[in-house]
């Protein structure tokens, strides 16, 4: 869950109000404010305070257009699940809140009857959420939220350094290992792996395994057709171990947190950084070199991105202001707002947006194109595992990757633990 929330958090930080909703929590909405024209909307704190200012501006725009006041509550991202669950159960909580999608998160709230059904609103207001995204917020045939942004996991690299060292874009894991050696020889850290928080390890397993087995193979793992202790998972974990032992990562990567890992890349101390497309904006803000974004390579090819959704926006089942809350969600679904989010937050809503008038950097344009392929189903994309699996499995995965990186467990042992935690 920690990673999932973190994942939602960083993604949310990019998509502002809409995206922030992905990592939002709860405020008194069901009972905290009696003004029918005021709704409470709680969000997890974004990585960058500047994003919060943008969110506030976005809320102000909605207030001006609708006459409905939004009481924005910001809570620590790591407490979102606890706060939301507690407040919703108590019959209080926010009118609108962000939460992770998928069966382990929003699905659990839906099962307990804590979220407001939105199937009718979808029909009446014709919200054009992509079908694959809608599935992530549909439980027992009822749609209960609107999914946030589309995200990918991939490898950022410092193309200026790559050019200086004469390294071509890695087209296989062999190429990547060679690049690691060249970068190490130049006195730099090849890949800024950071796994103190644990959830980042799940992303590494996701991208390595996705590139190794493709989208069809990942589907088999997620739907249970294939067991998690199969040779492919062991091979993926072994590859991670091999990269670690080859010096591709910083010393003791499990002692480095996400922010410090990113800082290694921003500062030029590390030449590559594996994380999500939500970091495009922060990366471009913080670096003074050229950056490219590619999939983590497969053993025999360039590999595929892992793709999927961030979090979602939901309405409290006990809210007395569902009408205003639905108007708020409808605002988030407008073309105008979607385009604004893309341009300002560099994040991609989970519904079609005409981007012809949107100004975007080359790097973000690439991410937009990739996201479009996820949306229309034309691309081959793997999965980010932790948003599709249970918290027990995620915990086993995060602990397992840390164990491999610190030599506390073998890939075979970790794979067996994953299957046991399924």
């Amino acid at each position, binding site marked *: 869950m920690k990673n999932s929330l973190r994942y939602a958090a960083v993604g949310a930080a990019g998509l502002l109000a809409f995206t922030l909703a992905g990592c939002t929590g709860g405020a008194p909405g069901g009972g905290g404010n009696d003004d029918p024209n005021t709704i409470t909307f709680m969000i997890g704190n974004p990585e960058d305070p500047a994003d919060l200012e943008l969110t506030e501006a976005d809320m102000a725009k909605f207030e001006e257009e609708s006459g409905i006041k939004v009481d924005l509550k910001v809570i620590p991202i790591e407490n979102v699940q606890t706060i939301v669950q507690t407040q919703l159960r108590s019959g209080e909580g926010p009118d609108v809140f962000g939460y992770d999608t998928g069966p382990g998160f929003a699905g659990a709230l839906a099962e307990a009857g*804590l979220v407001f059904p939105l199937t009718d609103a979808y029909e009446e207001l014709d919200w054009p959420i992509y079908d694959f995204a809608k599935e992530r917020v549909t439980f027992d045939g009822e749609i209960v939220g609107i999914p946030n942004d589309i995200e990918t996991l991939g490898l950022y690299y410092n193309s200026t350094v790559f050019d200086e060292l004469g390294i071509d874009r890695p087209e296989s894991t062999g190429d990547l290992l060679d690049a690691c050696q060249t970068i190490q020889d130049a006195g730099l850290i090849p890949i800024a792996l950071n796994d103190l928080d644990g959830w980042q390890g799940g992303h590494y397993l996701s991208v390595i395994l996705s590139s190794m087995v493709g989208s069809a193979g990942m589907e088999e793992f997620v739907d249970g057709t294939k067991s998690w202790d199969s040779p492919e998972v062991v091979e993926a974990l072994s590859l991670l171990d091999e990269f670690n032992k080859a010096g591709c990562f910083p010393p003791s990567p499990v002692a480095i947190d996400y922010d410090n890992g990113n800082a*290694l890349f921003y500062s030029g101390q590390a030449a590559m950084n594996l994380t999500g497309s939500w970091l495009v904006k922060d990366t471009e803000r913080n670096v003074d070199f050229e950056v490219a974004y590619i999939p983590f390579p497969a053993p025999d090819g360039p590999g595929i991105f892992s793709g999927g959704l961030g979090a979602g926006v939901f309405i409290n089942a006990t809210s007395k202001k569902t009408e205003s809350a639905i108007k708020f969600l409808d605002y988030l679904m407008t073309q105008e707002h979607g385009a604004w989010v893309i341009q300002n937050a560099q994040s991609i809503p989970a519904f079609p947006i005409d981007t012809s008038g949107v100004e975007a950097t080359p790097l973000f344009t690439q991410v937009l194109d990739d996201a479009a392929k996820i949306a229309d189903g034309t691309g081959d994309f793997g999965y980010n595992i932790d948003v599709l699996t249970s918290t027990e499995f995620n915990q086993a995965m995060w602990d397992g990757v840390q164990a491999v990186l610190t030599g506390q467990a073998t890939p075979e042992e970790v794979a067996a633990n994953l299957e046991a935690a399924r």
Partner: protein
Amino acid sequence: MTIASRSLAPTVTRRAQARLGIALVLPVMIVTALFFLFPLGNALYYSMVDFDGLDPNPPFVGFDNFTRMFSDPAVWHALGNNLIWIVVGTASPMVIGLLVAMLLWTVRRGGAIYRVIFFLPYVLPGVAIGIVWGWIYDPVNGLLNQFLRAVGLGDLATGWLGEPDLALYAVLLTAIWAGTGFAVVIFLSALRNVDTELVDASRIDGANSAQRLWFIILPQIMPVFLMVLTLTLVGGFSVFDIVFIMTAGGPSNATEVLGTYAYDQAFVLNNIGYGTTLALLITILSVPIAVLLNRLQRRLSLQGTGA
């Protein structure tokens, strides 16, 4: 007042005394019920249900959570780390605190400055301490590794929080740094009440420093010593914040203590019933020790021993 004398008192007086007694104990009873008995009863209830944080009517499971706790290897691993924390994390601040207090006891000028310097870490928020020490321990840009490299000890540079065999001790060192100031200040206050004539007499009799400390000074400050020992010891069972901030129990559970394990079970994995059971274990382990040391401290005080 004896039973006989009570029976001789007028009825009105007895009633007034009873009312006064009730009025005097009522606030304490309310506070105890509100902040101790009610939470304890609540915890006992949740330890006997399978509560996931969502179901308003969680199924009753009896003692299943307790059975599970005793057969859970992660509990024993966490308890082992707690024991390390208790032994090292109690002995170190006690010894260091006493020695520093002894040194400061003899300081004639600038004592207040030293007291502030030593006490300052204790008043800093645990979260801030954890974050700052996390930076210090950073394997790439951390001050500790940079210092080691600067003085030619680069071979010792390592990822302090990332090595399973080292991480717990690295966090412990931070906790000792943060907590020793408390022991220093309390011991120093106690030393001010030590009968210096006895110390001087023992010196004349030929007692060396260690003998004076052991036979003359320590007995006089024993109740205070036991009070600090109790607080530090119980803190070893309930340690949570600094471990949570610095390692969250990692890498791969290497620094897991009962507090972080209970938190993970309750708030990460949504096994709130089981997490509550683990929290009760912390209480069950720490309360008897606290009571025992408290009684010892009281007995010494009644005997007239101590500062």
